[in-house]
């Protein structure tokens, strides 16, 4: 990612949001596909309580392992639970957890990176050391240990500690990147001009530096949402993430779901496809955003 080039432009002027989106869709058809898929999943997840045909946790021993049919478009699992409903509610879990963890992690990371870059000196050195320490630990290792440490803390049906565990590995990554881009902007002429003009530190950061970081931040955010969804699925698969009976895509593949692969392959196919589709769409969106926002490519 070439942030320096993206940020060499002066502060961005406000334009109509709708216009921007439509121009984006026309210029980047793949990205538009990604955006649409993401939106469909988000809406499906949000409306899950209204559109899901069954209660996702309702056990129905009479209906175990039923193949896809009109009554159960995606079939049922080994407890007789409707898989379509579980996928819909799972979309809710995945997208909310992905969004919240990635946003919390990126925001925190961005704040740390910005502070580090702006204040420089000893503060910068100290923060960088801590960031390096966290960066040296692999993401899943960090998440695993944090989950074991914090246990579960359910609020409104979502596990806050899991969100934290997934957000924590994101923070140092974002901090590192934001810091280096902020450092390059710091040298830019218009920041110097603002300082000379006597603007306060706060104003310089928020009104001048931050808007130029919006683009790379947004791109990183989509990438991290994708990563967060994947991480949550992996943790649930390992038994350390979302737990029964909450529906989550990774959880639907965990435990002895594998045992039924011959009798009920739909138990394994649909959750895997759902995870892949979600991650794929977010990545597609992020990629297209990046291509679109890179001025050099716009000039071609």
């Amino acid at each position, binding site marked *: 990612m070439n942030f320096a080039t993206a940020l060499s432009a002066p502060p961005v002027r406000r334009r109509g949001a709708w216009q921007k989106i439509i121009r984006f869709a026309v210029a980047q058809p793949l990205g538009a596909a990604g955006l649409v898929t993401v939106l469909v999943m988000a809406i499906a997840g949000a409306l899950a309580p209204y559109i899901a045909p069954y209660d996702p946790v309702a056990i129905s021993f009479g209906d*175990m392992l039923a193949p896809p049919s009109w009554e159960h478009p995606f079939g049922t699992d080994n407890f007789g639970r409707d898989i379509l409903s579980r996928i819909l509610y799972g979309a809710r879990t995945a997208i909310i957890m992905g969004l919240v963890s990635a946003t919390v992690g990126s925001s925190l990371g961005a704040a740390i990176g910005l502070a580090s870059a702006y204040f420089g000196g000893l503060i910068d050195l100290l923060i960088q050391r801590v960031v390096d320490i966290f960066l040296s630990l692999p993401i899943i290792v960090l998440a695993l240990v944090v989950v074991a440490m914090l246990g579960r803390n359910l609020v409104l049906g979502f596990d806050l500690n899991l969100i934290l565990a997934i957000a924590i590995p994101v923070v140092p990554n974002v901090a590192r990147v934001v810091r280096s881009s902020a450092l390059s902007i710091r040298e830019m002429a218009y920041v110097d001009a603002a300082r000379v003009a006597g603007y306060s530190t706060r104003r310089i950061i928020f009104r001048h530096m931050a808007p130029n970081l919006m683009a790379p931040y947004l791109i990183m955010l989509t990438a991290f949402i994708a990563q967060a969804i994947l991480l949550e699925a992996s943790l649930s698969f390992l038994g350390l993430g979302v737990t029964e009976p909450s529906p989550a895509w990774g959880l639907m593949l965990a*435990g*002895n779901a594998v*045992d*039924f692969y011959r*009798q009920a392959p739909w138990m394994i196919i649909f959750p895997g496809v759902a995870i892949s589709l979600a991650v794929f769409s977010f990545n597609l969106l992020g990629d297209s955003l990046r291509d679109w926002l890179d001025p050099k490519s716009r000039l071609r």
Partner: protein
Amino acid sequence: MKRLLGLALGASALALLATGGAMAQDAKPVRGGVLNYGVAGGPHTLDCHGANSFTVLHHVGPHYSTLLKTDNKNYPDIIGDLAKSWTISDDHLTYTFKLHENVKFHDGTTLTSEDVRASFERILNPPPGVVSAWRSMYGDVKSVEAPDKDTVVFRLSAPNSGMLSILGSPYACIYSAAKLKEDPRYPEKTVMGTGPFQFVEHVSGSHWIGKRFDGYFRQGLPYLDGFKAVALSSTALINALAGGQIDAEFRGVAPADRQRIEASRGASIRFEEAEGMGLFMASFNTRVKPFDDIRVRRALTLAVDRWGGIQPMSRISTLKYVSSFQRPGASNALPKAQLEKLPGFGRDIKAARAEAKRLLAEAGVPNLKFTLINRGPDMPYAPFALYLIDQWRQIGVTVEQQLVDTANWAQRRVSGNFSVIVDVTGDWGEDPSFVMARYLSSDSSFNNPTGFNDHKIDEMFQAQKLEFDPVKRKQLVNALETYIVEQVFTMPVFRTVRLLPLATKIRNYPVVPVHNWLGDVSEIWMSP
């Protein structure tokens, strides 16, 4: 003439059939072959005395002998392994064992009574650094003596009707006294015993190999040339069985796994089953409101439809039997008619649930809400908890499940950090003197997490321990069991099935309820 021929033909045909039938039945054991089996975990120690899990014995067991063992062909009778014969004094306080002669250790030395004495001494009075996990089970043993090289004498401080079973624990491996004197912790690092197989190799996390010990004291045994135990995770175990890379597993698999394995292996594998020893319960923390109120606990056990739920449960998990603390087929088990009178075990679920709602209202908590601590992610904990939660929902009780891993679960259980917790037993034997010891009052039991103290239970337990007449003892055990079920500080629900996958070429392996111990591996043979 024709008639005579016909008669002769018929007679010879009959004779052929008879001998053919006899041959098929008494197929002669064949020497040779290596048994490949899977174990759902590697051994965390090589020392039987410090172990309490099948993961250790399934690896280490074939290398050691014990003083007494369970006769798996006539389960649960106790027969001698190293012991040739024994006598019990009339006051049941002295047990005298005569040992087999010419028993050799794998290093060539000969076993004497001193080895047996030293091994039991190690269990009773472990030297510093040695973990004796089963110490409390031998509470009534005062001392062990070796008056001459073929005799071992146990002196008890009090009679115990389960003492023979206790002395037949598969965890009481006999070690070499000479080596113990040099280093009391040697069994943790070296595997050297008098068992039918000699240690060859162990690669941590991967596999364990043993080969036939030619100097084994039972002539002609073992039949197998050796064995290879492979440590695998549960899913990988089923895959390996399906793919033909291992031929057996000795803890047990689930019915769903069975279908998967059969689909791949067809006729080359068979499945044998017995009632298992895994009893799944819910334990209540009686120190915490409202579970200190017996009405609330009764209501919660009444709400669960055991008889109605066992059918579907047995299709998707290893839980196959409705059971109380004694296994349904055990000699001391409650007769069915009596069991069905106990709270929670009745057949009329409607009436039971109505009663449950009434009790909850009376106790002042009609819309009870609580958290169930469950252990995961292994099976069958997940379906068990889901079923309980579903059943409790039917009487208006809202339960949230909190799934924690084994270490977390073990700690919460012991520290009392729970209201209701999924609990399980996995005993290695049946005798009530140690199976029921768990349910003694919290201040005297080693494993009662509920905080429940009732000295009536302790007295009833003592009574059955001192009763040697089997009929009278059964009555006492039944009364004890009935009382515990009625107090509901822990509620038994379902019991597992021990469903073993065995390649058809494996012969002479009687399947018994207990899974901790592999059984007598010296008598297994494989048809070519």
